């Protein structure tokens, strides 16, 4: 059942911000979001990244969101309402923040679903701030300054670098926790630089990135053959452990090394879409010029990121966006832009090319763009990379973890067989010492 009245949107005002409102944002990629929190806090916003998990989150989501809506919406909104209901926050001094992309996928409706849920829960007074770069909704109490935007972009670059290297070092580290330590140390260093207004120019980034790469390269490792798995999918389910039933922990427990393509590619994809739109259908040349400049800026950042990692032959640097893009030429059109669009297909191919061709393709159950870009393209990808070993996994409140893990295990069994053929050595299987991370 639904509400009868449709009130005006509650704005997040200057006064609210002055009064020290807590702004809650759902968590996604932990390394990135630790920095994100810092950027907001140092810019005068009392941001808190939600980490609450557990069955209550899903229950709240099921209760307040249409159950056929995609799983990320259900989780994110469930997580927020669970937090609001927890008693931890003063409901008269709390606001919510959520990203809004504005694409043709239903994901652009999350913010409206969140407001509906708040109304249903009798908390319609809580302001919801849209975090977007398209000027979709304005709030007098919150503005993304140019400084913040630059820091956020830098945060994506640093976050991607650390995430990539962490994932490549951690499975082989001699001392458990060594890779995590590098992440923690560098996160602190970078946040301090952000405070001082540093760490955002290309030069400073180059310096930081090579520092990060060097720190990871210095972690003592013991190499042994491990199945290399790539993870792609709908952006939330791909990164958020809440969304994918702790997929990364599971893969680690199975003795795998995994690669999850970074957020930078997605950011560039979103900008590039505007260019592609104009190329395909015609449109405003001024807009084209602006986006081209933005694209150049991001490409320059990406170049630094790749260069820093490439210095160390033991690491696999991510492919350049333009290269990844070139892989899908003739496979799927660049006009397929909703959700993760052609990028999802391209990432699977990129992973196959980089030696991570055992792929878990994650999506919320019934994810519309992934019918096309994920499941719809697997057959084609396998024609091009016959060794690609892809398993699509659906996530929703009723999919059980046992089922999901069983399917992934099938993919891994085939992968281990192939790896054993290549190396003549039995690859790492399930790891007893890390079993505590798996709660079956």
């Amino acid at each position, binding site marked *: 059942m639904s509400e009868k009245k449709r009130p005006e949107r509650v704005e997040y005002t200057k006064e609210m911000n002055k009064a020290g409102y807590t702004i809650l944002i759902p968590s996604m990629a932990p390394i990135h979001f630790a920095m994100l929190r810092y950027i907001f806090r140092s810019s005068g916003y009392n941001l808190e990244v939600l980490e609450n998990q557990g069955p209550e989150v899903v229950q709240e989501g099921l209760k307040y969101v249409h159950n056929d809506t995609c799983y990320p919406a259900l989780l994110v909104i469930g997580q927020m309402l669970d937090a609001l209901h927890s008693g931890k926050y003063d409901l008269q001094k709390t606001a919510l923040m959520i990203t809004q992309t504005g694409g043709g996928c239903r994901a652009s409706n999350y913010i409206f679903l969140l407001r509906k849920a708040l109304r249903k829960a009798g908390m319609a007074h809580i302001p919801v701030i849209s975090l977007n770069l398209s000027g979709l909704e304005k709030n007098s109490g919150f503005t993304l300054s140019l400084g913040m935007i630059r820091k956020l972009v830098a945060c994506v670059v640093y976050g991607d670098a650390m995430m990539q290297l962490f994932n490549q070092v951690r499975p082989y580290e001699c001392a458990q926790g060594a890779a995590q330590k590098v992440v923690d140390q560098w996160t602190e260093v970078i946040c301090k630089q952000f405070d001082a207004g540093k760490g955002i120019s290309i030069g400073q980034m180059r310096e930081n990135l090579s520092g990060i790469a060097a720190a990871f390269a210095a972690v003592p490792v013991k190499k042994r053959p491990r199945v290399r798995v790539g993870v792609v999918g709908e952006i939330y389910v791909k990164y958020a452990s809440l969304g994918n039933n702790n997929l990364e922990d599971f893969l680690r427990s199975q003795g795998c090394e995994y690669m999850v393509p970074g957020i930078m590619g997605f950011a560039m994809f979103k900008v590039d879409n505007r260019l592609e739109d104009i190329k395909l259908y*015609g449109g405003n040349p001024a807009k084209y010029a602006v986006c081209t400049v933005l694209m150049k800026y991001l490409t320059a950042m990406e170049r630094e990121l790749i260069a820093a990692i490439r210095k160390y032959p033991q690491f696999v640097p991510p492919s350049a966006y333009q290269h990844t893009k070139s892989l899908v030429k003739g496979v799927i059109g660049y006009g397929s832009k909703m959700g993760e669009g052609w990028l999802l297909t391209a990432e699977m191919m990129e992973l196959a090319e980089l030696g991570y061709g055992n792929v878990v393709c994650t999506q919320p159950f019934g994810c519309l763009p992934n019918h096309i870009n994920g499941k719809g393209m697997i057959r084609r990808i396998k024609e091009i990379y016959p060794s690609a070993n892809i398993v699509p996994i659906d996530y929703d409140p*009723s999919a059980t973890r046992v089922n999901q893990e069983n399917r992934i295990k099938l993919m891994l069994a085939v992968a281990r067989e192939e790896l054993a053929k290549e190396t003549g050595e039995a690859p790492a299987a399930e790891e007893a010492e890390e079993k505590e991370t798996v709660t079956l």
Partner: protein
Amino acid sequence: MLKIGLDVGSTTIKCVVLDEGDNILFSDYQRHYSQITGKTGELLRQVRDQVLEGRPASLTISGSAGMGMAQSCGIPFVQEVYATRVAAGRLAPGTDAVIELGGEDAKLLFLTDGLEVRMNGSCAGGTGAFIDQMATLLKVTPADLDRMAGEAQRTYTIASRCGVFAKTDIQPLLNQGAKKEDVAASIFGAVVNQTIAGLAQGRRIQGKVLYLGGPLTFLPRLRESFDRTLGLTGLCPENSLYYVALGAAWCGEGEAQISESIEKLAAYRGQGEYAVIPPLFESREDHRAFTQRHWRHAVPCGRLEDETGPVYIGIDAGSTTVKTVVTDQRGGMLYSKYQQNSGNPIPLIREFLRELYELRPDIHIAAGAVTGYGEEIIRSAFGVDHGIVETVAHFTAAKQFMPEVDFVIDIGGQDIKCFKIKNGAIDNIFLNEACSSGCGSFLQTFAEALGYSIQDFANLGLFAKRPVDLGSRCTVFMNSSVKQAQKDGASVEDISAGLSISVVKNALYKVIRAADPSELGRHIVVQGGTFYNDAVLRAFEQELGVEVVRPNIAGLMGAYGAALYAIQSDALSGRDRDPNRRSGILGPKEIQDFHHKVQGVNCGLCPNNCRLTVNTFSGGRRYISGNRCERPVTHREADDSLNLYQWKLQKLQSYAPVPGPRGKIGLPMGLNIFELLPFWHTFFTRLGFEVVTSPLSDRDLYLLGQHTIPSDTVCFPAKLMHGHVETLISRGIKSVFYPCMSYNLDEDLGDNHYNCPVVAYYPEVIRSNMPEAREVTFITDYVGLHQRRHFPRKMAEILAQYYDGITLREIKEASDAAYREYEEYLAAVRAQGEEIIRLAREAGKRIIVLAGRPYHADPEVNHGIDKLIISLGAAVVTEDAVSGHMQKFPVGVLNQWTYHSRLYAAARYIATQPDMNLVQLVSFGCGVDAITTDEVRDILEEEHRIYTQIKIDEITNLGAVKIRLRSLFAAIDQQQAEAKREELSHV
């Protein structure tokens, strides 16, 4: 060293022991009834003591239910599909494909030409569990089912996605008298289709095929069914049950410490960590007080033997049970009967009447009414006076117990019906859509699986200390959750309580979608057999925080309501003043001589050629079912003059091919092409192409393309596109035009004008998954009709890739004509809509805006719902016929899809038109409609209008849809009568 392989599946456990020469020393196959660790331990002990006799052996576990256990007990595990592959490699070299059906899994392995292994996704349709469910529904064993399938003469189309969908198809077939043999064969056909549609994903199953697993081993007709559809003869090899276990055995390495493993298994009780919810009752006293409170709501009773006046009969021929009551003329209960319905309600009603006449040969029946799935057939078979829709029956009964009732919830065998009552009329109806989780049969399934009767099982939960939080989900998934909970140490009591609570949560949050109990109102009557279950009743009250009324005849309310209806109807018409009034129900003599014959025939009156089931009863009365229209019954042409869906179809079909110098170009009629046909037809005809469209969809067309569908959860209209493109290609079309379109035309009704991702990009899926599409010129370029100025130039670039010599000038002219034609088409739709509305108003008919997407006009997609509405006496128009009346207005969501903006506009417009009502068609799996349905409902409810939603999929049966529509009409009637009465009282 010996090798032990264990395959712990979802329902069975299989074990083999191999010697050094790979001979099978021991094998065992048994159901484990969810006692997984216990049975495994038992088996191992048996193997150790009787087979090994001190010899060393390796041990490997496989199977979906064995994974967690193996991990916790440190026993090597191998994934079951992988194990199958290992076994097939050894035992049947040269095998091309393996089809393995298990309890809850279906697997398909391609071994040659690129290894591929597939398992069913998050849906368990088409597996052993499904076959078991269907056998239970027919009240036979799976083996009987197989035998019966061998005697079939014809098959019906049964949705195969999931047991629930299939039930929706099967139950009415049975109720309408279809032969069980034919249904059995149809069930196997459904399994085959599900396996192919769900798993083949664009790859043809061919060559040497192995059939493995329980169902395929035990059911030879199922194998035949696969053979027939695949066009080959598959092999069910020796040891077909043990392939996984054998594969596991062969994966074994190193000596296992069997005794240690047995001990570990014995000690393995799970972590005891599962989510817990508060108990239902703290104490026995609580329960006593609770029971006493509820037994207060009892119906007055008399004795049939003593009754001298006229009596009334109420019949509820439900999907799984048949309920009958006899009342006196004041509604006092004299006699009742509750029978399980094994598919055909006719003998049950005959039995009831015979018993009644035996008890009281002199009985004076004044009138009777029948409701439920079997309403129509019972009415014609026995001459029952009234037939009423279930919702009305239940409401009538509920009012008797609580005159001020404002919410009724009925949980039956596989239906949940809820309705809100406002001003004495049904204001809003909620039915469970194609999902039976949370119904009576759901609890029953679990009770039986765990070896209890439903009653005992439910009572176990009353005093459970730590009920398991199972959430609310599909029966099959619930199975896994229950198993998980068991592994984690939950007791049967805790599980029973958890399931009862899950039933309630499902009803509240999935069917009613309530966030707050206050939304349901203060006066709630609960009914249906499921509420006899105190655990469910208690959970319901706890979840809502209100005390509700459960009548002592909760399970008979439909029948009781029907009897009351007959009484009230007599009172209204004044017929009750006639002491000699007699019901048309067959008398003692006629019941004695009653006979019933069933015949299956093909209609043949129109190209649909429906398969009809003709029931002939004694006295020559006939009842025909299986028809999509009234023609075989009334022998009259269906009147389409007030049906805009039909008009649209005819209009679109009038765009006939015009031979042209540039040859033929094919357009698949669905998704983004459907409504744009006037545009593209004009465009290409002007350019000198002969535009050939694919025909209207039908079952055969769907089957033609189903093996290339990569994602089994995509919507049905998208799945049909495979058939459309295949059909065009099979007809020799060498160029197919099916463009990608991120954007649709901007109608200025929303903030943007996207297509949904599936409508936008489905051509990419066809191109990548249909090998035949690569043999022709398949044009899937991205086209932007919204950029009218840029369109000709962009289109020239696109066409230049495929054709020489088409000038920009030509294209400009063609596109101008095309845009014009499209505008004219839309205008014609609106004009015809206006005309239908005018005619309907003149004739005093109701107007239904059947709102969906343009491609819902395809009869295979809408299953003839438009005609059904017409047959119920209303006029049908489309959303786009009225959306043009509105300007853009603010809505509570991001209004960014062209087709969906029309829905919001149509809803807003209808809210101002008292004689119009909106029925929304929603495709199963349409993610976007999760958003639009709530918003359309909000828009209508703001103006206190009734919202009706119909979910459509492959399901072809219209029974449930009819209930919805009739309930809607009954509600509108009541509201209007209420309004009139108020008006009069003001005067």
